[in-house]
C-alpha cells in the first residue's frame, strides 16, 4: 500500500553534494473536491517528510494540499560519512511510510 521510491547515489566522495530524489505513492486528496452527489471528499494528504542522515535530521518539509499527487521532493545533502539515510513520510489518517538507504563515502 505505501509505496515509495528514493533515488540517491550508492557511493560518493567525502564532502560531495549528493542529490536525493524521493517519490511517495499517494493520492494527496485536497479536501476541496466534490463527488457527483455534491459531497466534499475529505482531505487525505501527506503532511510531513523528513530525512535523517545517521540519525541526524538534515532535511524536512511540510506538505500542503497544493502539492501534486504522488509528491516528488528533490533536495541535496553533503556526503559526510558512510551510513544510513532514513526517509519518513507521515500524513492524515495515520499514514506513515519509511525507507532506508545506505551510502558508502570514500
Amino acid at each position, binding site marked *: 500500500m505505501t509505496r515509495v521510491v528514493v533515488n540517491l547515489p550508492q557511493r560518493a566522495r567525502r564532502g560531495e553534494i549528493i542529490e536525493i530524489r524521493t517519490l511517495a505513492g499517494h493520492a494527496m486528496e485536497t479536501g476541496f*473536491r466534490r463527488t457527483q452527489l455534491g459531497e466534499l471528499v475529505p482531505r487525505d494528504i501527506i503532511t510531513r517528510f523528513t530525512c535523517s542522515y545517521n540519525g541526524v535530521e*538534515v*532535511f524536512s*518539509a511540510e506538505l500542503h494540499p*497544493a502539492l501534486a499527487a504522488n509528491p*516528488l521532493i528533490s*533536495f*541535496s*545533502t*553533503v556526503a559526510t560519512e558512510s551510513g544510513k539515510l532514513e526517509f519518513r513520510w507521515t500524513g492524515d489518517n495515520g499514514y506513515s511510510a519509511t525507507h532506508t538507504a545506505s551510502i558508502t563515502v570514500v
Partner: protein
Amino acid sequence: MTTRRQFLVLAGSTLAGTAAQAQLPANIEALRKAALAEAVRKVTGGAQVRAGRVKLDVPPLIDNGNTVPVSVEVESPMTAIDHVKAIHVFTEKNPQPYVMTARLGPRAGRARVSTRARIADTGKVLAIAQMSDGSFWSDSVNVVVTLSACLEDGLI
C-alpha cells in the same frame, strides 16, 4: 420578435450564469489576496521581504495545473554561519496559499529544492527564502494555466 428558441437559450444562459456566481463570494479575489498576505506574514512575522537571491523556476505556460514542476534555488554559501533555514512556496489563486515549506540547514550543501505542485488558476507563484541571519528574500513568477487543478468546473 423573440422566437421560442431564442428565448429558451437566453433564459438558460442567464440562469446558469447566476447559479454559478452564487456559489462564490463576490470578493473572492480580494479574499485570496488577503489569504496570501496573511500566509506570508505568518512566515516572516512582519519582517521585510526583499526581492533577489532566490530563483524560482516554474514554466510560464502550464497545460495541466495538476502537476507543475516547481524548483527553487537560493544563492547562499550554506555554511554554519550563513545558510538558508527554510524555503516557502505560495500560490495566489489556490483555495489555500500554502504549497510547501522545506527546512534545510548547512548540511544541505546547496540550497535547491524541487517538487511538483497543483496550481488552480492563472496568477502569481511566490517563493520566500528564510536565511540564518533572519532576512527574507523572494522571487515570484506569473504563470498562465490552461487546465486548472483542484476544481474541475473552473469556478475559482
